[in-house]
Structures are given as C-alpha cells and as structure tokens.
C-alpha cells in the first residue's frame, strides 16, 4: 500500500508536468517558450519512469530516463538551428512569422503584424531638475522617454 501511494504521487506530478507542457505548447507564441514546454512534457515522462522504476525495483526505468534525456539533447540541437534561422530570416521569435509554411488554400489565421498594444512602460520617479543637465545617451532615451 505504501508503495502504491508513493507511485501515485509520482504519477500525479508527471501528469501535471505533461498537461502544463501541453498547454504551454498550444497557447504560447514565442518559439523558445514552446520548446521549453516540450522539454517540460519530457520532464513529466521522466518523473513517470522514475516512479515505475522504484515500484518494480528494476533499473530499466533509469535506463529509459537516460534515453529520454539524450533525445531531449538532440531536440535542443534542432531547436537551436530553427530558432537561429527564424531570427535570421524573420527578425523575431514569433511563430506567426513562419506561417507561410502552411498550404496556399488555408487562409492566414492572423495578420503578421499583430495589433497588440504596446506594453506599459515602467513608471519612474520624477525629481525636480537642479544643476547642470546631464548628457543622456540615445538608447536610454528610447527606453525611458520620460527622463
């Protein structure tokens, strides 16, 4: 009974990791976060293998965990290539910029230039201006226009 309860804990954690990774892969638009979600699903499988390995007292589960980790390494190499080529050819990590891969008869799901509002800039404290005006570099002015 104790063994079964311990296995159930591991199964629940593995299931949660797999489900959360699925949600991340389905809903996020950043290619890096999507690949991290796939790695999260692999982590769920790893936890599952560990639970069954202990339950049956063999080391086959650990062998398969090593296999999963090696496949994750191969996947990370492909991900590196895909991300670098996306950034080079499309200047961004948005997967919508890869939407020309679809068939011609399928209508585009969203316009490429998305119509999401700008993020709110962080609010900086305002101080009274005294003394000599400082020289502010241009990139700081771009990031903090209210300086």
């Amino acid at each position: 009974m104790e063994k079964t309860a311990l296995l159930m804990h591991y199964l629940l954690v593995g299931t949660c990791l797999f489900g959360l990774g699925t949600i991340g892969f389905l809903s996020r638009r950043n290619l890096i976060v999507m690949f991290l979600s796939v790695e999260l699903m692999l982590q769920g499988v790893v936890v599952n293998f560990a639970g069954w390995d202990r339950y049956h007292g063999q080391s086959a589960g650990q062998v398969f965990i090593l296999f999963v980790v090696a496949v994750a390494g191969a996947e990370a190499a492909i991900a590196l290539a895909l991300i670098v080529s996306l950034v080079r050819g499309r200047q961004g990590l948005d997967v919508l910029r890869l939407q020309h891969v679809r068939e011609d008869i399928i209508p585009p799901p969203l316009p490429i230039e998305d119509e999401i509002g700008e993020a709110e800039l962080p609010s900086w404290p305002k101080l009274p201006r005294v003394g000599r005006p400082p020289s502010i570099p241009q990139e700081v002015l771009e990031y903090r226009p209210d300086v």
Partner: protein
Amino acid sequence: MDMSNLVLILATILMAAGLWWALPWGKQRKRSPGWALLAAGLAMIGALIPPVGSLLARSLITLMAVITVASAAAMITTTRPLYAALWFGMAVLGTAGMLLYNGAEFVAMAVIVIYIGAILVMFLFLLMLDNPKGMAAFDRESWEPLTAALVGALLISLTTATWLHDGSVIGRPTSGEEVGRATHAFVVTKTVDLGHELFSRYGVAVQVLGLILLLALIGAAIIISRPLEPLSDLQDHREKTHAIRDTDSTP
C-alpha cells in the same frame, strides 16, 4: 456518483478557469486569482491520493512536488521568456529532487547537468538574439487560452482518474530485491548495476541513440545552411503561383 469523481470534476473546472485567467491575453490585469484557482484545483486532486510514509517523508515529497508543479505553471504563464527559462530550471531541479528520492542518484545528476547546464544555458543565450527586455507583443498574447486551458485540465484529470479508481491499471509491485527494506523511504541503488544493464541488455539501443544524436547534428547543420527567404519574395512567389493557377482554371 462517487465522491472522488465529484472532487475530480470540480478540480478540473477550477484548474481550467485558473489557467485561463493566468495565461497572457495581451491585456494588463491581476493574475494572482488565476494562480490561486489553479493551486486549489491541484490541491483537491492531491488530497485524493492516500498519504505516504512518515510525516517527514510526506512533507519532503509534497515540497518537491509543489516546487516542480508551481515552477511549471509559472513557466507557461509568465510573459517574459527569460523568466520562463529560469522557472523551467527550477522545475528541473524539483524533478531531480524527486529522482534522487527514488534512488536514481546518477540519473538525477545527469538530468541537472544536461538540462540546466547545457540545454537551459543554450536557451538563455538564444534569448539574447531577440527582445532581451521581454517587451515583445507576441509574448503578451496567447493562442486560444480558454481552449488550451480546458485541454490541459481535462488531460490531467482524465489521466489521474484512470489510475486513481482502477487498481488493475497500476498492478502489483514486483517484490524482488527490495524485500525487507522500507518501502517509502529514501533508497540508494548501485550506479554500477545501472551501467552494466545499460551496456549489456540495452547496448544496441545505446548505439541507435548515438546515431540519432549524429543525425540531429547533421539536421541542424542543414537547417542552418539554408536561410529562410524574405517574406516579400514569398508573397511575390505566391501571387505568381495564384496567377498561374487562375490562368490554368480559365478555359
């Protein structure tokens, strides 16, 4: 209807609602209620599992499980990719703790070294290619957050229901070498045995794995060596193909 089924259904609704609220939509709002709902749903599912071992063992396992799942939830809901990568590292640490508790000490160290030391650091470098400030528009917008949250919550609760009610799914434990040892406490296996098994019984599989890694390297080199065409050229190409198709279809 069984009481635990009701709890599972309620937990599914809570988890789906919480995830839907916590995923980014492109609109600024307070997202802590979503995390609270998700935690409530997960805690309800966790309460269905029978307790294990002594108080110390129980609290240790619960702590590692909470760290792992909470980091995973934070990873998929944060709007900054840098924080997503760091939360993923935290989830891997929790997983390694659970592996270590199960006596897989070599595998736990391998997971930490490969995932955090190699894969995560590589993704952190890749993050510097684009939007290091994390202010990109597409990071604050999700595809269909409600449907994705429903799919994930249903996946979690249905998978849990299969092994929670039916004991035949889990089966009986193999009582071999572990007879007489505490069944719920920390155990240590021999890494030497793992190595013997890996290179005797699974020797061919190790060779195939090496081949897969080699193929992945070749594939990465091929993908890198062929750059994507610019989008304007693609649109010209598509217009040309459409024109050809139109002339073909007209008799």
